[in-house]
């Protein structure tokens, strides 16, 4: 079964969680499917707009109050995007590297001190 068949089903969110995850992997590699999805989203968007109904004013106040105390993701914080994931991992690695050097340096220094102390004790 070709994944291409699933673009429309995906556009309607009619896949279960596992199928959705698998299709999203396919989507990342398939420009044809991404283009078709963009076309189909126009349709689902129209279907949604057709259902528009004014929400209660209270909800607006609640949302804006919550927004006022909700921090936003920074650009690098968008964890769901694979490319940015890699950036985050790389940055984390880079941050870890100095710590590793420090540990190695401390270890070497400790070994030297022990060696010197050992030499002094034995004489």
């Amino acid at each position: 079964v070709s994944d291409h068949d699933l673009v429309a089903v995906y556009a309607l969110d009619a896949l279960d969680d596992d199928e959705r995850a698998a299709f999203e992997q396919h989507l990342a590699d398939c420009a044809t499917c991404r283009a078709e999805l963009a076309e189909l989203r126009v349709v689902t968007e129209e279907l949604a707009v057709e259902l528009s109904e004014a929400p209660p004013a209270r909800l607006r106040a609640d949302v804006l109050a919550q927004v006022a105390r909700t921090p936003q993701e920074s650009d690098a914080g968008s964890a769901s995007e694979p490319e940015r994931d890699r950036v985050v991992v790389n940055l984390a690695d880079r941050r870890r590297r100095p710590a590793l050097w420090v540990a190695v340096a401390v270890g070497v220094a400790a070994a030297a001190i022990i060696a010197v102390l050992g030499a002094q004790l034995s004489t």
Partner: protein
Amino acid sequence: MRNVRDEHADALLQRAAGGDEQAFADLYDRLAPSVFGMAKRIIRNTAQAEEVTQEVMVEVWRTATRFDPQQGSAQTWVITLAHRRAVDRVRSEESQRQRTERLAEVSAGPSLSDPVADDVVDDLDRARVRTAMAGLSALQRESVELAFYGGNTHTEISTMLGLPLGTVKTRIRDGLLHLRSLMEDGR
């Protein structure tokens, strides 16, 4: 691609991504009615539709820096997120029995939203979407509605209708593509 893109909404979302709460409030006014109306139709519960609307709009604020206008409009982004959230809510919170009842209601009931007096959407837009829906074959419409408004998976639809999965996939795809051309004709 879309004929009319709400570039104002794109600009508002980009300003919101920079922390502009007023821009976000304006974006809310533009997009929350679609989110709320759609969530209410899918979930069939006003209180839960309000919760989903709040979750979705706060997430839009929180993740606004991810918005990339090259990938699609702000409205598409928000509605895509909202549909998924509404569908996830329906799937996770309803017992199978309730769902079955709701499915029966979705299949038997009027195919589009009630014509309540509502100044949020242009009547012409509404009529255009309704006309397009009416232009689908009954079989295409049934599958599209069970998925979009019912929140059912294609596997569930295949079981409900007693059809092979491949047939359901084809009907959904043909139905959406047909809708798209009918909507364009109606412009």
